[in-house]
């Protein structure tokens, strides 16, 4: 896989998972051209966010959670695998979305961001979440 990899040593201790979620978001935010990142539950609840102050977090969370569910339910209806990553690009920036066991990872980046690098970093982040949150014996490949 090309691009930067997230460097996190996850302890699988329940008590530290809250910190791990924040670590994952902070690592995503450190990537080149990335403006902010967030993990939002499927119900729109913000688990962790590192976003620019100009972004209305709750509104973005509601919309991205709805978007994530839309992508998942559409895939189910069409008999296709669920989405792993999605990217939406506009004039002044790009939004990435990835599905995970605990919710959706959202990354906001500049338009010139390396798409493959962010997709790789999101796959790494999803794998970290899977490793830490899945019950023993239930870890799925990223």
């Amino acid at each position, binding site marked *: 896989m090309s691009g930067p990899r997230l460097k996190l040593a996850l302890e699988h201790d329940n008590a530290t998972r*809250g910190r791990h979620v924040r670590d994952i978001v902070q690592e995503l935010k450190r990537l080149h051209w990335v403006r902010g990142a967030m993990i939002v539950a499927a119900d*729109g609840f913000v688990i962790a966010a590192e976003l620019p102050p*100009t972004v209305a977090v709750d509104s973005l969370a509601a919309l991205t959670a709805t978007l994530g569910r839309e992508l998942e339910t559409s895939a189910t209806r069409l008999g296709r695998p*669920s989405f792993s990553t999605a990217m939406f690009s*506009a004039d002044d920036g790009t939004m990435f979305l990835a599905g995970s066991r*605990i919710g959706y990872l959202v990354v*906001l980046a500049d338009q010139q961001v390396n798409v493959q690098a962010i997709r790789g970093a999101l796959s790494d982040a999803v794998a970290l979440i899977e490793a830490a949150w899945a019950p023993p014996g239930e870890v799925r490949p990223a």
Partner: protein
Amino acid sequence: MPLLRRLWRPAARHAPLTVPDALRRAEQRRREGRYAEASALVTRALELDRDNLHAHLLAAYLHVARHATAPAKAEFRWVLGHDANHARALIGLARVALEEGDGRACHDLLRRALRFYPDFPEAAALLDALRARDSPPPAAAPAPRVDRLRLPGTGRALIVGRADGGLIAAQPVTDEAKDVSEALARALRLAAAALQRCGLGPVHRAIIDDGRDAVFMRTDGDLVVSLALPRATDPPQGLLDVNRLWSATLHELGLAAATPPIAPPATPVSTPAIDPTRRVS
């Protein structure tokens, strides 16, 4: 002795829990994505106080987080049965309605929430997205000659649709092309609303990767051209291919007179014998 005391200390789950304790811990587990544990704590809280509104609301959220729509609806309805204008339950039920494709119910629930709580950003954001969805479709576009649009050799499907989801043309023609066109349009509308909320402007391009295919999309807010390629396709390559098809589609629709009719694909084209094409509308 302190060590032994620590070893022998009874587990926290055996300690008697009060309802506020259970709900506080459940909220904490929810913040950490530990939904199963949070649900167990909410169940415990409801055993102690079966009419606790906060516990029912939290139960609804946890059902949604675990993608269990039916019990989530039941819990949101329970809350609304006890507080008809509960904003969080209204928006929760609205999101479930949207997920189920019931735009009218979603709209009504969001309007209800905003009537009592005008300063409710999530509800306002979702209502904006819904209004965009419900805007009247543009005048019917003529069907492009999709047989003249050559897919790249690795191309699996091409769908030309309107931003409201209406299918204009597909290659190859399949029964599910209409559903795919609608699904892509719904996703684009929500993404557009999210990008606009972040001040990033209108959405122009998208890539949706489902582990099997990567769907590359181009849109101008009226028209959507999507090209399914193998997942391993390099993003710049896929975007180049969809850009080529975008220009060719505009030309076929008579929307871009100056564009060369058919630009050569960035990757080798499919042979017509392998990839039969037909106009669908």
